[in-house]
Each structure stands twice: as structure tokens, then as C-alpha cells.
């Protein structure tokens, strides 16, 4: 502590100096904030103001500084001081712009500003500059799991950027599903003809690339470690095991076609009814000549049934659309028309889905004479002469088509490994001694792809329908296992063009992961954050909440059953900190102390002051910007609230709430993101965990003699500037009606 020097810089620009008693703020910083250096500047964010601070850091030994000016979201680039710890007291968006105009409000406005200065000073005293943990031995190799089109593309992308790649493929050859295609749909103009797949050429490039090491006939027996230090046990079919050290993983394990045998009503299992993969095999055998059925008869008429076992609302088959099948059927119909224009090829579809330039491919098929009929197939009969019965949606009548061959466009079923929800249930029962569950667990784990040695299970969490997708529209690569990225049809149903794009992007994410982890930096979304949670294990009660609740599976258990933090897997959300009942987990710059000391720093008025005091804990990504936006629109809200931004509502430790209420605050508002199926929390479960934990706080409040309404939780979207102002005012009115907290004076 001897070397620390604390400073407060107060800005009087943007009208702050007109509306606030700056001398009063300086006094608070000095006497209560205990700052050594206190300076006011009329325009702190300009070059001169910033230089003043830089000079103090360089010449005067300032190490910790509180900037009392605008929101932390404004002028962020101006106030960058890499060697110093910085807190921001939000006097502009948080006070000046939201407290009603007029001298009637001068007193509460000044009180609010003084509290924010107290809070900023209190916070900075507890903050440390994160040093970051540079790992010189960190591996930059990329492990690609799956050697199909996506995997080969990812491997080439990373290798061509200079990174070493280890590719593990289960079968004896590269190429995956695509190697069994006769041709592929076109990727570029003029989008008129099916194209050679290029799989063999790509496989040859991969096999001969000096940076790529390929393991065929291999699976992952175990994947242990974390980004920068994954140890993959690559098990050969022969039984030998090779250990590969890698920094990040791209999983491209593709899909399996939906089993045609599950569609007996559509002729699945009957002669001369095939799926799209089956038709490719016939086309390869024909090699551009006449396509023959399994019985050797030349096909003169073919019917394609779209959405076979897909878009199913009954719950029996696949609920989703696989996206590629319309274009695939068009391509396959062309196989026939190109060989012999006299062959009848009809595609029976409900909605023909060929977005983008696929429209030109569709036109090309129409020009070649492929017939497209809008209808819904109800029954297919196979055999020597096949028959498709369908409802013609245009003529609004039942119709039939006879064909030599019927092709069912079935969907993609992802190969994403173990469903962790299922695993967790079984694992819990098995750990509890249930013998049947133990057997189920063994069976389930045998289907794992990655075999992660993680406390939270052997594969990536899946999103919906078994795809290991991200739930974020803006961030499609965000899986819930740090440094492990999903690409291709195991992430989302997709065609080959999208899969190659996806794999190229995933390779970049993997490169990013290995680059950042070596520097000790957090990956997305707190990119570059050098802080990292540490635990005082001597205080730990081994309750396991942190290991269970971490949304990213970052925490394992050591042999003594203490939590084992894997820094490289951590996203710095603080959910573990919020979970910890004994408060032993903290970050250098964000901890129970940095927030708790702010809660305590606020001047809580006495009962007779008739000024309620409300604590707002606001998610920094959505609720806090919404509050800023209210300020920018010059909306007003009550000056009785004090806002503290938090990394995620999941990081909120209930001690802050009980401390606040114990100290005589009249209410606490928690503002987080939408939870549930359409969750918007960027740390996945943060807001959900907060609701869950806080639903249990009622008893504590009761024990304190407090009404449950003194702590409420809200879902706030980033656009809710106007709504959040109203919510605050409504809540303050409600608290005034309830009367002051009975805890006042006991704090």
C-alpha cells in the first residue's frame, strides 16, 4: 500500500460546474474519500486535462484515480491510463442530465453527486491494476476435430495463416459427407450448373500441407486442460494413443442424415425410395450417364419429396428446416435432366427455399425442364413403380405422381456429442450411487466427441435440437466452452457454401483464442480484460456452487475437492463471485469489496430526512447504457437512487443487498437482461442465476423484518431508456408509500 497514491479528478465542464458545488465535491473527495491529490479541471477530457493526469501519474506517483465527470461509456478512449487503476463517478449522464431542472432540486442533485464521488473514491481504494498472467509456454496449435468439408476448410484456413494444425478424423479418409457427393451446388455466378465438389483436391492439399498433421481412424479419448494448454489424447483405431498439445479447438463433426427408416409413410425402407445421400451414390455410379436404380433399371421418371421428416409440427420428426435440401434436390434433378432431358423430374415442395443467388439455380432447373409442384406428400409407395400421393396446394385437390424412383429430402441431424442436460441429470444420480444411472452414464459418455475432462461434462453445451450453436445473433461463434468453436452442420443446419464460410470464421476465432490466452487476456465479450478470479481457499466451504454455476465450465475440482479455477477458460463474468456464499472469490479490479465499499460509502439519510435511498445494481451491458440513454434524452428520474454497474447480474453477491438493506437503504433494484428461452444475457445464465438466488433471499429479508418488495429484480433492455426512468420513479413512489426502512438507524 505504501506505493499507492490516490487521486480524484473532478470535471467542471459540460455544465457540471454550473449545477454542482464543486468545492463541496472536492471536500468529499478529500475528507471522506481520503484522496491525496484532488484536482478540478474545466474540461478534463481534452488534451490538456488528460495530460494533467498523465503528468501526475508520471511525475507525482499517482497510481489510483477516480474520474468524476461523465459516464464510463463516454470519453473512454481519452481516459486510458494503462498503468493506473481507474474508477469513474458518473456525474453527467448519471446526475446532471437526469435530475429535474430548477433550484428546488439543487440539494438532492448535490447529494447525489457527492455520493457518486464517495463511491468512486471507495471503489478505487479497493481496486488493483490487473497484471495479467502472460504464459510464454502457451500452445498456438489448432486442433480440428472432424475431417469433412468444414474441418478441412478450417484446417487450411489456420495453416495458411501460419498456425500449426492437428486434424483428427474418425474414418480412414478425409472428405466426410461431401466425398460421397457426385457434384455440389454452385458457389459463384452464374449459378446455373452443378459443380465438381473439389473434395479430393482439398483433401490432397490438407494431407500435403506442411503445417497440418492428420490423424485418420482416430478419435479423442480425452481432452483435458484449457485454451493454450489442451492435451488431446488421440486414440487410433489400432489402440495406440498419441498426446497432442493444442491451444484451441474447432469442432466440425458434421451431421448424419435423418434415418429414412423412420419415415415408413413416405416409403422409407421400400425399394426404389432413397434419400438424397442414396441418390448421390446412384449418380456417382452413373458418372454422368443414365442413372440406374438398385435393380439396374434405368430411371425415366423421378420424384423429389421435400421436407421429408422435417418442419414437422407433430413432434415425431425434425421440427426444423435443414436449409440445403431444396437446392440439393434441384441439383439432383439436374443430374437426370443433364443426362437425358426427356426424363420426368418433379419436385414436390411446400415452400421452395433457395435464398440469395439460389434463385438463379432454381431458374436454371426450370429452364432444364424440372417441374416444381407445390404440394404436401402424404404417402409414398415404393417398388417397381413408385407412387407419391400428395395434396396439390395450388389446385387444392389430392393428386398422385408415378415415378421409377422417389428421393426423400431428409434433414441434417447434428453430430455434436453428448447432450449435457441429459448427462448432468444422469451424472448427478450416478454420483449419488444409483447403479442404473452409472450404466447410463457410461453408455452416454461413449457417444462423446471431445471427451472433455471438465467438471460440467464431456462435450459442448447444445442449444436447440442438438446443435452446438450460439444463442447470440450478433455473435454466432460464441459457444459455452472457451476456446472451443463449433462450425459446419453440427453448429446449425447448413449447406456446403455456408459450412466453408463458417469453418473459415471458426478458424479465425481459434487463432484469436490462442493469441489472447498467451497474453493472459480474456476472450469475448470482455476482450482484453486482464483480471482473473482468485479464491481464498482457506475460507472455502467446498459448497461447489461456483463449479456448478459457471456458465462456461471453467471451474473443476482439485483432488482435495476445492474449486480449481482454469483462468484460460474464464470469461470474467463474475458468476462465481456472485455464487459464493462465503465470499472468497474476487477479481483484482472487481470484487465483493469494490462493490461493497461503494454500497457502504453512500450517505444514507435518517428516517426524519424523508429521503429514501435506493441501490440500483445494473448490468453494464444493457441496463447501464439504458440509464445513460435516459440521461442523453434528458429524461428525469428520482435523485434518491444510487447506481452501481455490475459485470453481469450473475456476479451480484447477495451480501451487497443484505448489507445495503441492513445499512438502512429503503430498497434495492436489480436490473439485468432478459432470461428464459430467448435470454439476452451475454454470460448466458447470469440474469437467470440472479433471479434464482434472489428468489431465496426473501427469508433473509423477513428475518430482518423487511418487506419482500424492498428488493426487486427487473429485466431491462438496452433500448429501455424511457421505461427505466419510469420504473425508477414508480418504485421510489412505492417505497415512499411503504415508509422508511425499519432498519434505519441500526446500520
Amino acid at each position, binding site marked *: 500500500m505504501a506505493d499507492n497514491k490516490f487521486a480524484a479528478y473532478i470535471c467542471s465542464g459540460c455544465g457540471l460546474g454550473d449545477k454542482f458545488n464543486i468545492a463541496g465535491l472536492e471536500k468529499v473527495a478529500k475528507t471522506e474519500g481520503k484522496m491525496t491529490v484532488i484536482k478540478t479541471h474545466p474540461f478534463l477530457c*481534452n488534451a490538456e486535462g488528460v495530460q494533467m493526469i498523465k503528468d501526475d501519474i508520471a511525475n507525482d506517483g499517482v497510481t489510483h484515480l477516480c474520474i468524476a465527470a461523465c459516464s464510463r461509456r463516454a470519453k473512454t478512449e481519452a481516459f486510458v491510463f494503462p498503468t493506473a487503476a481507474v474508477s469513474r463517478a458518473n456525474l453527467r449522464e448519471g446526475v446532471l442530465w437526469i435530475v429535474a431542472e430548477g433550484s428546488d432540486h439543487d440539494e438532492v442533485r448535490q447529494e447525489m453527486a457527492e455520493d457518486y464521488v464517495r463511491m468512486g473514491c471507495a471503489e478505487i481504494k479497493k481496486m488493483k491494476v490487473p497484471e495479467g498472467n502472460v504464459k510464454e509456454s502457451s500452445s498456438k496449435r489448432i486442433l480440428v476435430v472432424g475431417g469433412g468439408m468444414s474441418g478441412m476448410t478450417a484446417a487450411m484456413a489456420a495453416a*495458411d495463416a501460419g498456425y500449426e494444425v492437428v486434424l483428427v478424423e474418425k474414418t480412414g479418409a478425409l472428405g466426410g459427407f461431401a466425398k460421397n457427393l457426385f457434384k455440389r451446388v454452385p458457389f459463384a455466378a452464374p449459378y446455373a450448373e452443378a459443380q465438381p465438389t473439389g473434395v479430393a483436391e482439398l483433401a490432397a492439399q490438407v494431407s500435403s500441407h506442411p503445417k497440418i498433421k492428420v490423424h485418420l481412424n482416430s478419435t479423442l479419448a480425452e481432452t483435458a486442460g484449457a485454451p493454450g494448454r489442451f492435451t488431446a489424447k488421440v486414440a487410433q483405431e489400432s489402440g495406440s494413443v498419441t498426446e497432442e498439445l493444442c491451444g484451441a479447438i474447432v469442432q466440425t463433426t458434421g451431421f448424419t442424415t435423418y434415418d429414412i427408416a423412420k419415415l415408413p409413410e413416405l416409403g422409407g425402407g421400400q425399394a426404389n425410395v432413397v434419400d438424397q445421400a442414396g441418390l448421390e451414390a446412384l449418380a456417382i455410379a452413373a458418372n454422368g450417364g443414365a442413372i440406374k436404380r438398385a435393380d439396374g433399371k434405368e430411371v425415366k421418371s423421378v420424384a423429389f419429396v421435400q421436407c421429408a421428416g422435417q418442419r414437422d409440427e407433430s413432434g415425431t420428426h425434425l421440427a426444423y*428446416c435443414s436449409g440445403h435440401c431444396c437446392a440439393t434436390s434441384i441439383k439432383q434433378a439436374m443430374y437426370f435432366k443433364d443426362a437425358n432431358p426427356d426424363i420426368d423430374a418433379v419436385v414436390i415442395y411446400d415452400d421452395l427455399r433457395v435464398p440469395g443467388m439460389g434463385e438463379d439455380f432454381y431458374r436454371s432447373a426450370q429452364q432444364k425442364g424440372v417441374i416444381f409442384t407445390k404440394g404436401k406428400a402424404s404417402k409414398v409407395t415404393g417398388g417397381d413403380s413408385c407412387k407419391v400421393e400428395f395434396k396439390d396446394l395450388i389446385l387444392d385437390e389430392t393428386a398422385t405422381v408415378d415415378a421409377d424412383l422417389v428421393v426423400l429430402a431428409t434433414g441434417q441431424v447434428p453430430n455434436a456429442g453428448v447432450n449435457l442436460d441429459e448427462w448432468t441429470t444422469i451424472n448427478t444420480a450416478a454420483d449419488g450411487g444409483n447403479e442404473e444411472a452409472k450404466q447410463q452414464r457410461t453408455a452416454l459418455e461413449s457417444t462423446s466427441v471431445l471427451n472433455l475432462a471438465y467438471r460440467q461434462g464431456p462435450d459442448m453445451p447444445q442449444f436447440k435440437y442438438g446443435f452446438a450453436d450460439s444463442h447470440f445473433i450478433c455473435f454466432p461463434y460464441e459457444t459455452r466452452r472457451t476456446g472451443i468453436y463449433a462450425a459446419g452442420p453440427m453448429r446449425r443446419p447448413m449447406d456446403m457454401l455456408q459450412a466453408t464460410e463458417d469453418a473459415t470464421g471458426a478458424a479465425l476465432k481459434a487463432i484469436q483464442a490462442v493469441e489472447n490466452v498467451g497474453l493472459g487476456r480474456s476472450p469475448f465479450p470482455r476482450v482484453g480484460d486482464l483480471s482473473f478470479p482468485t479464491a481464498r481457499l482457506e475460507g472455502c466451504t467446498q459448497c461447489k456452487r461456483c463449479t456448478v454455476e459457471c456458465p462456461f465450465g471453467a471451474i473443476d475440482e482439485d483432488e482435495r475437492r476445492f474449486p480449481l479455477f482454469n483462468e484460460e477458460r474464464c470469461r470474467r463474468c463474475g458468476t462465481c463471485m456472485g455464487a459464493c456464499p462465503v465470499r472468497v472469490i474476487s477479481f483484482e479490479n472487481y470484487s465483493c469489496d469494490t462493490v461493497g465499499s461503494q454500497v457502504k460509502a453512500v450517505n444514507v439519510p435518517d428516517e426524519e430526512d424523508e429521503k429514501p435511498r435506493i441501490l440500483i445494481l445494473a448490468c453494464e451491458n444493457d441496463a447501464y447504457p439504458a440509464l445513460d440513454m435516459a440521461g442523453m434524452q434528458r429524461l428525469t428520474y428520482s435523485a434518491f437512487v444510487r447506481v452501481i454497474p455490475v459485470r453481469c447480474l450473475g456476479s451480484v453477491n447477495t451480501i451487497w443487498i443484505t448489507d445495503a438493506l441492513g445499512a438502512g437503504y429503503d430498497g434495492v433494484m436489480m436490473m439485468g437482461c432478459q432470461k428464459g428461452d430467448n435470454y439476452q444475457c451475454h454470460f448466458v445464465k447470469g440474469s437467470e442465476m440472479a433471479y434464482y438466488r434472489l428468489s431465496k433471499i426473501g427469508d433473509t429479508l423477513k428475518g430482518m423484518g423487511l418487506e419482500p418488495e424492498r428488493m426487486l429484480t427487473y429485466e431491462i433492455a438496452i433500448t429501455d*431508456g424511457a421505461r427505466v426512468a419510469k420504473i425508477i420513479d414508480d418504485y421510489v413512489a412505492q417505497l415512499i408509500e411503504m415508509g422508511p426502512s425499519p432498519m434505519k438507524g441500526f446500520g
Partner: protein
Amino acid sequence: MTASIATNQTILVVGGGIAGMTAALEAAECGKQVILAEKTPTLGGRTSLLYRYFPKMCHPTCGLEINLRRLRGNPNVRVMTMTEVAAVTGSRGNYAVTLKVKPRYVTENCTACGDCGNAVSAEIPNPANYGMDKIKAAYLPHGMAYPQRFVIDPSIAATPEGEKAKAACKVDAVDLGMQEETLELTVGSVVWATGWRPYDANKIQPYGYDRYANVITSLEFERLADPRGPTGGKLLRPSDGKEAKNIAFIQCAGSRDENHLRHCSRICCMATLKQTQYVREALGDAGKSTIYYIDIRAIDRFEDFYQNVQKDATVSFIKSKVARIALNEENNSPILHGVDTEGYHRYASEHDLVVLAVGMEPEVTGVKLPDDIILDSSNFIEGSKTEGMFGAGSASSPLDVNRSVQSATAAAMRAVQVIHKTASTEAA
């Protein structure tokens, strides 16, 4: 002048929408140097003008906030707004780029306090609401604008109104003497994330967008639904300000049509399905949405969203390409004429408001691009002959946000490969 801000190991990203921001950030977070050039005064692009995203109905500014935080904390990215690419020559690993920077008339001193906006009285059509309302001619483009800095519209720069703005500024941030600047720089790779624009609805003459006030585009409808929009989130008819309750959505307005855009714009079906839920949000069971469509292209798990909308009793679907729109002169309501192809019935249906799901055309359509760039038949960027320039996002194909980000990440990967080759060649 030749700027020293870039080298042949720098990546230039053109366009600061979600694709451009993504490409820039993804490359920068791999340690590469990036210049992100945006022609308007703010980053964010078209997505920041959307009310909600399908299928989660979440708000685009949520992801923008995260991307802006990534950007603010990353010294590898240099953002240049009001900047356009005038010329590119050279080849992979060594492109000479000419940038033109338009005057903003406001310097980095700006604190976004708003004094200049309060001081001026001149107004301009609000670009953030497609000109459906007006804002002061000294303005912050929108609440999430980045850089968070005001702009003075060129129309007032040399007028007494401009002087008012200058006089009001206490931090000396207004510089009315700013001139257009030209910068020459060298970069190794260029990512074109120039995005899309709505197809000109005036060209679809039978729909009367140019004649009928109550025929609007899907983009304008986004602004009507948005509480930050010109009507405060109320679905009001432009002709009389009355609430529109019976709303028609016409799909493929300009798309899948060889007379207009030959491609399918991909996003419009989902955008319309989403917009029917705006009608529900605003009017509950009292609203009525009718979708006139050819195929509903709700691809992959978007199918869930389609199925849920089909269950919504306020939404009906008519498989028909609307032939023409006439006007009920008495109430200014559009009347849609066409044939329902499911059963072949003719219809003449009156609606309070018609929303044209207009197609996406590349923003660079009609713009002179470097000769090197390879375009497809709809002017989407396929790549470049010298293989060092790449399309990203909806500049490369009509894509939704999720796939634009995917595409932009892939483009960043390709640009990083170019830089790697350049760097290793020079080292050797």
C-alpha cells in the same frame, strides 16, 4: 498527403456496419492493425436502425454496445468516419488506397453535451428515421452513435446557423473551416463490408410507393414500430396519422423478379414475420396482418418462428404475387389486386397500410469499384482478381445479421492470411 497510419500489414475494412465492425474487431483481436472506414458520421450501419432482430426479438443495440466496448478498448483499430474510398490500385499484400474524408465541422473536443443542437434552429430530415421526421442540423446521429460526437450538416456550415453552433460550444469543438481531406495510404488487404440498401420502391410502379402515402417500405415500418422512431412506436398512417390496424405485407417487392432484382433477398420473409409481431405488440388482438407471399423462406431453425406466427390468429397468409395496388380515394387506403394461387381466387382487398418487403441491393450498385473486384450478376462482391480483397456481410450476398457476422469473420480470416504472407515474405 501520405498518411503513416498504415503499412502493407494493415487491413482496411470499408464500411462500419455490423459486418465491417465484426471484420475489423476479429482481425484486430488477432493482433492485426486495422483501419475501419465508414462513410456516414457513425458506426452501426443499418442494424442500428432496426427495432428488433428476428427470431429473438432482441435489440440490435445490445450487440452494438458490446462491439463498441471491444472497439474502445482496442488500440489496433483506427476508426475513420465520414470517409469513403476513392481509389484502390495495386495487388495482394500491397494496395495503394485513396480515402476522402468529408468535413464533420466538429472536432474530437466534442463532449456530446448538446449545446450546439440547442442553439441552432435549422432542421434536416433525420437520417436515422429515413427522413420520416426532422432533427436539428447540429446533431448526434443517434443515442448509440460512435464516435459519440456531434455533426454539423454541411447545409448550415457556411451560414449564420453554423456560427450559432460555434458560438454555443464551450469546448471549442466546432470548426466551420474544415475541408474535405484526401489521404493516400498503403494496406495489405481490403475487406469490403459496404452493406446493402433497400431496392428503390419507386421502381415497382404497380405498387404506387411514389403515389400512395400509405404504402411504405419495411425499413420505414421498422422506424414506426420503434419507440425511438418518428411516431414514438405507434403504427400511424402517413396520410392522416390514424392508427393502422389492418396491415398488408407484400413479399418479394423487387426481389425474385428479373425486371428488378433477380435474387432472393433472404431476410424479407423473416423480417415480415417479425413485423407482424410488432403489430401484435402495438395492437394486441385488434391488429391484423396479412402476408402476400410466393414462398415463406424461414430457413433452418427460423422455422420455429414461422410456425409460431402461423398460430397467431391475427396473422393470415395469402400465396400470391400482388398484381397492383389501387387507392380508395375516400380514405386513402390502398386496395390490393391479385389472384390467390391456392385455389385461384381473385381478390381486391383494402388495407389501412401496406408494407413492401423491399429487396436488398448492394450499396455499391452503381458505384465505381476498383477494376479488380469481381461482382456477380446482382453486384454482390465475390472477391478480387488479385485475391487480396474480400467481400463481407451483405456486400457479398443477401444475408441476415447472424450470417453477415459469420461472413465477416471469414473475411477477416482471409485478410489475416494475406497479412501473414506479406509479413513472412518480408521477414524472409
